[in-house]
């Protein structure tokens, strides 16, 4: 599925990713943990093609296709989805309109027919019920005036409706209380399948109690400095990142 090899990336001439390598096979969930400033968000933006991140070396492929050569929307059409740490507010665009526009854009890009209005509404009703989102909320401007938890739920709703193949969750647990965390995690777990893979980026181990990873990687100083099973997350929670920061320095 995802294959990242010796990736280097810079922002404003400052190198943030310094030879990052990572492999996430289909059907697996990998967690990326690391201290603040390690490059976690940079990795998510580089994989999704945000402007302002200069790739200075290395490769990133999805099922063998060069991701870095594609525009953000081309990557989305191939199934790459990023759940944002800070979802954007889109004044004047109802959530339903935004999601339908995105879904149809992806379908067109893949040469598929657009979704019909009744079919779309049926899907939106079903998925919002799963995530305990009041359907009327989808008629409001996307994320405008929503609480932190509501915004995160809207991210997972979009994920469920767009049905991506490779999911990146950037600090999805921040701003969630324990009930919301359970709802969001159930939504994410429902998307686990043999054809999909996920990269869960988090600072804290808490989220990984709900979304159980197959592998855990420690990102420090722009590189993966350690990898292991789920037990590595618990070790990090106990002992902190200090020894990895020293290793990276």
């Amino acid at each position, binding site marked *: 599925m995802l294959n990242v090899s010796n990736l280097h990336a810079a922002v404003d001439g400052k190198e943030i990713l310094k030879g990052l390598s990572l492999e996430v096979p289909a059907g697996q969930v990998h967690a990326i943990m690391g201290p603040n400033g390690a490059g976690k968000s940079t990795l998510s933006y580089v994989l999704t093609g945000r402007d302002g991140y200069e790739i200075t070396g290395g490769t990133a492929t999805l099922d063998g296709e060069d991701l870095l050569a594609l525009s*953000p*929307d081309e990557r989305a059409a191939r199934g790459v989805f990023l759940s944002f740490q800070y979802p*954007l507010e*889109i*004044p004047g665009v109802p959530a339903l309109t*935004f999601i339908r*526009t995105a879904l149809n*854009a992806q379908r067109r*890009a893949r040469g598929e027919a657009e979704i019909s209005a009744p079919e779309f509404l049926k899907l939106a009703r079903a998925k919002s019920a799963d995530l305990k989102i009041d359907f009327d909320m989808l008629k409001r401007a996307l994320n405008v005036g929503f609480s932190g938890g509501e915004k995160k739920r809207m991210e997972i709703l979009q994920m469920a409706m767009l049905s991506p193949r490779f999911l990146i969750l950037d600090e999805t647990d921040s701003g969630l209380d324990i009930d919301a965390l359970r709802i969001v995690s159930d939504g994410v777990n429902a998307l686990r399948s043999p054809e999909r893979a996920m990269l869960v980026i988090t600072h804290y181990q808490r989220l990984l109690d709900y979304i159980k990873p197959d592998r855990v990687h420690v990102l420090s100083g722009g590189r993966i400095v350690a990898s292991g099973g789920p037990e590595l997350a618990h070790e990090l929670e106990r002992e902190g990142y200090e020894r990895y920061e020293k290793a990276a320095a």
Partner: protein
Amino acid sequence: MSLAAAIRDRDVAELPGKRDEDWRWTDLRGLIRTLPEPSQPFEGDVGEGPFDALTADSRVLVNGGDVTIAMGANEDAAVALRLVSRGAGAHAARVTVVVGEAARLRLFESYESEGASVSQASLTISLAAGATLERIVLTAEDAEAVSVSQAEVQLAPKSQYSQTVIASGARRQRLETRVLHPGGHATLRLDGIYLLADKRHSDQTTVVTHASVDGTTVQLTKGVVRDQARGVFQGRIVVEEGADRTDARMGHHALILSDRAEVDAKPELEIYADDVACAHGNTVGALDEDALFYARQRGMSEPEARALLTEAFIGEVVDRIEHEGARDVVRAWAAERLRA
């Protein structure tokens, strides 16, 4: 100094220009070296107007002329007023609108030109006590046309006047509204939209004078300019001495989508009363790059994401149009231009 006088006297010296403070961004004197011949009467078919689906009562002036729309007390009507220009001549139109006590008028006004005409429309609009008028102005002008519309509006206590001007510009276009606001719980909404491309120019100028107590004015204009287009917004609200408890809010916000496009804005509040609530806000900028990336990450192409966000920006003004049919016409008009 006015275009109407210049056309009447065939004298370019009467054209307003840079030296007139109110016209410094819409210089007609520097633009028009000689006035064209007076327009010939036009006998051909002028086609459909943009609001034909909303009313059967249509008044059409082709290449100038006079018309009066008068409504008696308690009457209710919707009227389409089409100011049509054909050919490359000069002409002027005069329009009188009278809305009687407690009457209600929906006025759908359009400026439609083909050819390099030079035209002026002068409107006198008066509302009696308790009258309601919603005026929707939409322009479809030739890229070579010069067009000026000037409306003088007189409100009465407890009347309600709402206006939305939707402009796509011309070689030079000026849409001016001056309102005498008597207070007395009369309410005024004065909105505008401009979507400009190529080398088009559009100027929306408003002057509201609050003469007495308890008046309300809300104003919101939004514009989008691209290519080498130029948008002008001049809004002035004057609150005269003693016009206490006036509540006036003015907003102008513009998006500039290319380096060579330009927006000139002058919002002004002149307040001579003590007990008032007045505010104005003015912003000019580019589309939010973070929102653009967010929409693209979800699969929208860059042009599609830009169109969606720009439509949403304009949508706030469109949503304030009270007449549902007119709102749909304007929304479709904006979508067509932004997705072109």
